[in-house]
């Protein structure tokens, strides 16, 4: 009954990349919006938004994504709020990514020299214009490399969504492995696929970091 590892299996694993990509895209989009909000709140003048954002980050950086996914999907259902798995994944991944991106971007915003903000204030620019035209564009340059770096972790992290039923790359590998008992072949393929997805991003991050270092030391 043990099946041979066949081309159909490879195809199955490759097509599971679809879910990995969809989940990553959702997480990243949600996280980008949430992360910006968190970062702005974390660098705000008022104490209250700063506290709330800090608490948010502490909770969602301090607990495993696996548990977050489990509690959102099964937990809400148990409380009488059944939720679509995709929505659950979107919620949990967004919260997770918002916390991490928020923290990365806060660092970038704070790394913009205070003189820049002061100059903008002295020119009487409003908070919005100041952020939009002066601070964020400069923060963006500092943030791109770590952001892309996080994206790589996120892509790998979506494998945890298998706990709520997504047959993405890692899960597809497990399923095929259970039928074929060829772990090295199967997980070798899985690892190679992740590498193909992530390596270009890592290169990009490194390239941007190098370019930025040049720009700074110029």
């Amino acid at each position, binding site marked *: *009954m043990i099946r041979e590892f066949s081309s159909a299996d490879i195809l199955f694993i490759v*097509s599971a990349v679809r879910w990995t990509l969809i989940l990553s895209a959702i997480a990243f989009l949600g996280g980008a919006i949430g992360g910006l909000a968190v970062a702005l709140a974390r660098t705000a003048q008022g104490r209250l938004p700063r506290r709330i954002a800090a608490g948010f980050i502490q909770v969602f950086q301090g607990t495993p994504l696996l548990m977050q996914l489990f509690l959102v999907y*099964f937990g809400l259902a148990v409380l009488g709020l*059944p939720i679509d798995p995709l929505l659950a994944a979107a919620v949990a991944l967004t919260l997770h990514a918002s916390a991490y991106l928020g923290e990365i971007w806060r660092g970038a915003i704070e790394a913009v020299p205070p003189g820049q903000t002061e100059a903008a204030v002295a020119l009487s620019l409003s908070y919005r214009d100041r952020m939009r035209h002066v601070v964020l564009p400069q923060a963006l340059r500092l943030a791109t490399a770590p952001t892309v770096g996080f994206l790589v972790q996120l892509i790998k992290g979506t494998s945890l969504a298998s706990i709520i*039923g997504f047959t993405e790359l890692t899960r597809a590998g497990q399923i095929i492995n259970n*039928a074929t008992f060829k772990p090295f072949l199967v997980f070798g393929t899985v690892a190679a696929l992740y590498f193909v997805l992530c390596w270009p991003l890592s290169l990009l991050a490194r390239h941007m970091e190098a370019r930025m270092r040049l720009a700074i030391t110029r």
Partner: protein
Amino acid sequence: ADLDAVKNAGTVRVGMLVDFPPFGIQDASGKPDGYDADVAKALGEFLGVQAQIVPVTGPNRIPYLLSGQVDVLVASLGITEERAEKVDFSKPYAGISIAVYGDSGLEIAAPEGLAGQSLAVARASTQDTGVSAVAPQGTDIRRFDDDASAVQALMSGQVRLIGLSNVVFSQVSTVAGDRFDKKFDLSSQVQGIAVAPGSDALLEQVNAFVDQAKSDGTLDQIHQKWLGEPLPDFVKNAQ
């Protein structure tokens, strides 16, 4: 969900494993297949609704049921007392026998011989419970996430013993030849279809289905297809 909800929806959502051959597997096109899949389809026909199969995993199959994400589990779920406290089981629809297997060179004939040995099982599986119940002090029970990992531990030499079902072991033998043999039986284990507590009407219908499928030969036929023999007597006769 209870019977009304299933009938209203026109579909019964069935949780099944897809990584537990030959009960639950994926066919070459990636669709769920296997003994459980055929049973699930038959159940759907009996209820007069569409059977929608939801792939679940060993560790999360019960949460799926309890949180209402599926209506029933046809997921090779062995009937045990602890589980019966959480879910309601139908009459047995399948069964496997569980034993301890291991390196052919090892002389072990009874649970006492396990002391000082390391032994792999799939976490939360029937063989996990079975082994844990009889293993003496000093047995190193290593719990893996699924049978495949446990088997891999055996094959790579990380452990020399494994608690496994006869079904999976026969597959192992096809690759490993006579490197491993059976040491002693643990138990035979019957499996039931599970519903969430309180779904009494649904459970009644499921039991009716199991009775009918046993008597009209449907289960024998499916068992023959996947395991090469008719439904064993210990399943037929179990209550």
